[in-house]
């Protein structure tokens, strides 16, 4: 079957051995790859009740059938494991060039088991696989690790690594690749750190076989035209990156501010995409085979490098009441160096500021640093302390829920299933609240990005305050996203492409015969197996909710003044849409229908 190499690299870190396994291609067709296939392997091989940071947890690095293939944005990979932050299934997606290189090396999946006694890294040069000592890399930043490994290994090798955050088991640690691309969410970096695995260097000399060059050329011509003609992927994202959303969400009065106490930030312009483009942007950057190029390469003072995304401008910006762009750029840089998720890091600082303001965190815990809404002076230093696990930073490194819970007030943590919510206040945008509440990894926007219809008007405009149609939309978006995340392409293509386009992509590359509805049905299957994993892990539907602040405290001022999220009007309908019982649990009939 095309689209896959047909090979799994299974690495036992406990005894240092590795072996090749054949990929079950029939299984691959049922779950596509990436997020879907990784979750299926977790379900088959790991007890969902496993301690996420124990050797018994496994870590799967999974490409999709599009990864490394000649299709637009075909360079994504997924990290699938059990999350130490949320205790749910974790699947974190990343772009850059690393995923495609793994595919070129002849492997589809790396399955890590056990725990190494000493720090190691994995080197892959096609079929030559070695576990090597990482003693001289342990404790170093992501960029230093990357540079050292690039110097040591073959020309053009690509490096994936954790930073001190993952080594020190920060529950919000990311896995980084190509220095500043992140499989960011759910604390996957801590799982890698718990296994004493510092990095994966990969070099591949092959290219996946493709069945029909002419059909691929035709497909690319058609899909690239759609991406170019679409206002968002053809102009908005290339020109301003994701950061352009700052002003939009602020104008709607749904830009979470000061730890979600407010939803409008007077100084939003100073942290906007427009300001980033006018004053800081040097050039845009792109992942493997990406025609969009939403990445920002920026200059701040004497420093230059990868710039902040929308989520980061929000988390360290308005969520902390901070309008100092230079401080945010540096906080973003240190998140990349420490290997820490920028959403969770910024949101945890925001929660810490509120905890300090309300007297829970005491002066003596600050070690002379500032922890104030509106003061960006020390946010980069807080990130470093999270990464190195120093002082109050060590508590913050476990995420806002454990931080706030440690002071007896978990309600100050703006999380769902202990994962920090992103930059859209669900009190002013109903459907995204339902998506947060029902996302299988917790508070996440990219499990079902209903911001598209609710805010951007794509593919059609919905009333953001209305609840009626939202359960249907959330389910469709969640299912389609699960399939896209499994194919190995970027979710941003979905601004321009629909389920039929993804089916065509899969068919042309892999020789399958799927329709758009088939793709959605596979997404449904993936969503349900994730849910099954969570239920078996002990994460019950009682956690399908939002923080009380968002259900009870109306937005105090601005265009969304007076609104709370009306989750109770949507949740039951959503369960019905999913074919689940009123208790939020998939029925036997539904699981049978999906072949689970």
């Amino acid at each position, binding site marked *: 079957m095309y689209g896959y190499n047909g090979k799994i690299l299974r690495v036992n870190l406990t005894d240092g051995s590795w072996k090749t396994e054949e990929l079950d291609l029939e299984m691959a067709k049922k779950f596509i790859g990436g997020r879907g296939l990784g979750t299926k392997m977790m379900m088959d091989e790991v007890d969902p009740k496993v301690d996420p940071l124990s050797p018994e947890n496994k870590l799967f690095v999974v490409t999709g059938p599009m990864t490394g293939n000649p299709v637009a944005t075909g360079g994504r990979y997924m990290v699938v494991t059990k999350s130490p932050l949320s205790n749910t299934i974790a699947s974190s997606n990343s772009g850059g060039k690393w995923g495609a290189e793994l595919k070129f090396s002849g492997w589809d999946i790396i399955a890590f088991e056990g725990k190494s006694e000493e720090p190691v890294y994995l080197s892959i040069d096609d079929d030559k696989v070695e576990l090597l000592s990482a003693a001289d890399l342990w404790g170093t930043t992501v960029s230093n690790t990357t540079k050292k490994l690039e110097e040591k290994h073959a020309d053009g090798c690509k490096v994936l690594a954790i930073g001190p955050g993952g080594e020190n088991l920060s529950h919000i640690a990311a896995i980084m690749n190509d220095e500043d691309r992140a499989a960011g969410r759910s604390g996957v970096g801590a799982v890698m750190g718990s296994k004493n695995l510092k990095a994966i260097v990969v070099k591949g000399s092959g290219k996946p076989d493709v069945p029909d060059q002419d059909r691929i050329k035709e497909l690319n011509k058609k899909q690239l035209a759609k991406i170019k003609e679409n206002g968002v992927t053809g102009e908005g*994202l290339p020109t*301003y*990156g994701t950061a352009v959303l700052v002003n939009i969400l602020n104008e709607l009065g749904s830009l979470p501010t000061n730890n979600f106490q407010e939803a409008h930030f007077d100084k939003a312009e100073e942290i906007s995409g427009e300001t980033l483009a006018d004053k800081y942007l040097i050039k845009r950057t792109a992942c493997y085979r990406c025609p969009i190029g939403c990445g920002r390469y920026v200059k701040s003072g004497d420093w230059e490098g990868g710039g902040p995304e929308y989520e980061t401008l929000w988390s360290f910006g308005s969520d902390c009441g901070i309008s100092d762009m230079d401080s945010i750029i540096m906080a973003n840089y240190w998140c990349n160096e420490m290997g820490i998720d920028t959403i969770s890091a910024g949101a945890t600082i925001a929660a810490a500021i509120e905890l300090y303001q309300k007297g829970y965190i005491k002066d003596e815990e600050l070690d002379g640093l500032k922890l104030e809404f509106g003061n960006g002076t020390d946010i980069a230093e807080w990130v470093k302390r999270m990464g190195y696990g120093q002082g109050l930073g060590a508590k913050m490194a476990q995420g806002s829920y454990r931080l706030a819970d440690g002071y007896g007030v978990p309600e100050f943590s703006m999380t769902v299933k202990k994962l920090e919510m992103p930059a859209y206040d669900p009190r002013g945008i109903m459907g995204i609240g339902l998506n947060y509440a029902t996302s299988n990894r917790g508070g996440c926007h990219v499990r079902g990005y209903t911001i598209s219809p609710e805010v951007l008007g794509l593919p059609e405009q919905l009333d953001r305050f209305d609840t009626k149609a939202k359960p249907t939309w959330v389910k469709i978006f969640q299912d389609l996203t699960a399939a896209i995340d499994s194919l190995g392409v970027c979710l941003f293509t979905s601004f321009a492409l629909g389920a039929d386009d993804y089916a065509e992509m899969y068919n042309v590359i892999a020789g399958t015969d799927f329709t758009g509805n088939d793709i959605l049905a596979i997404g449904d299957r993936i969503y349900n197996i994730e849910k099954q994993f969570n239920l078996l892990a002990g994460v019950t539907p009682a956690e399908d909710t939002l923080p009380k602040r968002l259900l009870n405290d109306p937005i105090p001022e601005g265009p969304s003044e007076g609104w709370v999220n009306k989750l109770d009007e949507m949740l039951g309908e959503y369960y019905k849409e999913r074919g689940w019982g009123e208790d939020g649990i998939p029925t036997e009939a539904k699981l049978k229908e999906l072949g689970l």
Partner: protein
Amino acid sequence: MIKIEVRYFATLRIDDKKKEALEVQEDTSVDTLLGQIGVNLEDVAILLVNGIRTPPEYILKDGDVVSLFPPVGGG
């Protein structure tokens, strides 16, 4: 005459003009306003009045804030 404010974003900002206070005739629609300020309706993907999605036929009221965005997105 009524007083309104127009806010421009992203590629709709010309010569770095972020916003302007305007006086327009009563009974002016947003559509008419766009003609007066030289913005093509087809270039506007998100049209907000006081933060709420509004059709171009909407008749402006004193104190309204009109926000104009081209097609943009992110995540």
